[in-house]
């Protein structure tokens, strides 16, 4: 299997403070990895570092995506290369509708004008999968959306932009059971449409019930302390993180 993402000895600081202290992680094309760990341990930092948030400074180590070192690649170009981060707290962008936003992003990626009719058809079908009313497409991006609606809007973008690799940062947190099921259906659809690699940062197992997990990682204190198969998810859920030095 070809290597999609290779993270080696990654150290990341925010301001003066080092948060990630040497992370190694390899994700092959089409694989689903789960990242677990207590709060404040650096999981979201890894997500931001991968997508290239300038506030998260890589002080050591590197990120290689599809064989290319991303050190000098800016965030928007990482996105164009096929990387996607589902934000924990998506931002509100007044005046930009969800639909026109996705269209702009697609046009940026392909460099071609998106054909309106086909786009609309695909968007509506995707909204249906996520059980979102079609009117959401014409609402301002995330403005006045509930927590659950924002998360669905992130998955909508995932399905429309079809990146090869996506990081889902606690996309399931704060959602009720039905919404988790919908998001989960969205992820399955993504695997069906694109078959891309996934890094799922989560606290719960619900979102994973219908998804095949290839590897599970436990992060504590800025490093990955344990890697295993999908059964590790259950072990962590039963016993917590104590056994890993928490």
């Amino acid at each position, binding site marked *: 299997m070809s290597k999609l993402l290779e993270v080696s000895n990654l150290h990341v600081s925010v301001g003066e403070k080092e948060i990630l202290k040497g992370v190694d992680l390899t994700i092959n094309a089409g694989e689903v990895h789960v990242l677990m760990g207590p709060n404040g341990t650096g999981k979201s930092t890894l997500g931001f570092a991968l*997508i*290239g*948030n*300038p506030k998260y400074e890589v002080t050591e180590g590197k990120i290689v995506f599809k064989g290319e070192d991303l050190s000098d690649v*800016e*965030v*928007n*170009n*990482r*996105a*164009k290369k096929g990387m*996607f*981060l589902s*934000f924990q707290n*998506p*931002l509100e*962008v*007044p*005046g*930009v*509708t969800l639909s*026109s*936003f996705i269209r*702009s*992003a697609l046009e*940026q*990626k392909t460099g071609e004008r998106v054909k309106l009719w086909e786009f609309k058809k695909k968007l509506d079908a995707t909204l249906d999968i996520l059980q979102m009313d079609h009117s959401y497409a014409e609402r*301002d991006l995330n403005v006045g959306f509930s927590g659950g609606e924002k998360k669905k809007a992130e998955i909508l*973008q995932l399905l429309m*932009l079809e990146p090869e690799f996506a990081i889902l940062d606690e996309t399931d947190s704060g959602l009720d059971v039905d919404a988790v099921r919908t998001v989960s259906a969205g992820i399955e659809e993504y695997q069906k449409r694109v078959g891309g690699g996934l890094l799922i940062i989560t606290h719960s197992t619900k979102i994973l019930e219908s998804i095949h997990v290839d590897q599970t990682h436990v992060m504590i204190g800025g490093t990955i302390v344990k890697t295993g198969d999908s059964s590790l998810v259950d072990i962590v859920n039963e016993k917590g993180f104590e056994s890993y030095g928490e």
Partner: protein
Amino acid sequence: MKMNQLPAFTFAKLDLNFAEPDYEPGKTKEIKITESSVINYNEASDVKLKITAEENKEISVFVLFTARDTLYLKAELEAKKASKIKLVEIDASLNEGRLISDVRGECKEDAKIELVQVFPGLGDIYSDCTIELTGDRSFFESRTSYLSRKGKKTDLNYVANHRGKDTLSEIHADGILKDGAEKTCRQTVNFISGAAGSKGHETEHVLLLGDDIVNKSVPLILCTEEDVEGTHGAALGSLDDEMLFYLESRGIGREDAEKLIINATFNKLLRYIDDEETKEKTEHLLEEVLV
């Protein structure tokens, strides 16, 4: 001429108590309007529109301005009981163009006056609007978007005089300043004794994108009535870093993000244009002048 006068003057040194465009209107042609209409101006004119909405009637008037000259537009609005007047001004003027708009209006019981201003053009804008909310439960809503750039002056003034009970005003202006832009925006909510139960809200958002800019903002709340609620909020700054990062994480670069936001500022107002033909035309004009 002198216009855009602040209802209460402030420090004279700031030079914003009024505006003095270098123009004297000639004899104005008066046009009486009682039905929805679309009016196009593509050359210099001095015009007076007398817009009257009869009781329980709703009318929309669209004024499109595309020229290299001065349009002096005086509009007198009378919204009778439970009526609604929507006045939409679209300025897609070219270099050297100038729109001088002076709107006065009165809102009777349960009536509404809505002012929508789409100002992406290249010429100067002087816009004055004072609405008397005399009737109980009358409502004034004003929404303005502008793009100001080098050599262009944008000078705005909005006044809502709350006189009737339970009246409401919503005064909102959003704009973008590019290199060399000069803009002044005055907003006043005036609660006059007797206007019990009234509410007034002003907001201003200014996106600062260029160098050598001059941005003046004066949001007034004047009040002689106890039982009211008035608020003002203003935010001025460059593109928010986090918002920019969010857009970039979807592959949209800084320059494109700026374009997207500029378009968004105007797109928000397109929703208020309920005449399909005018809307399409405006969209077309926006594409032309927003390059």
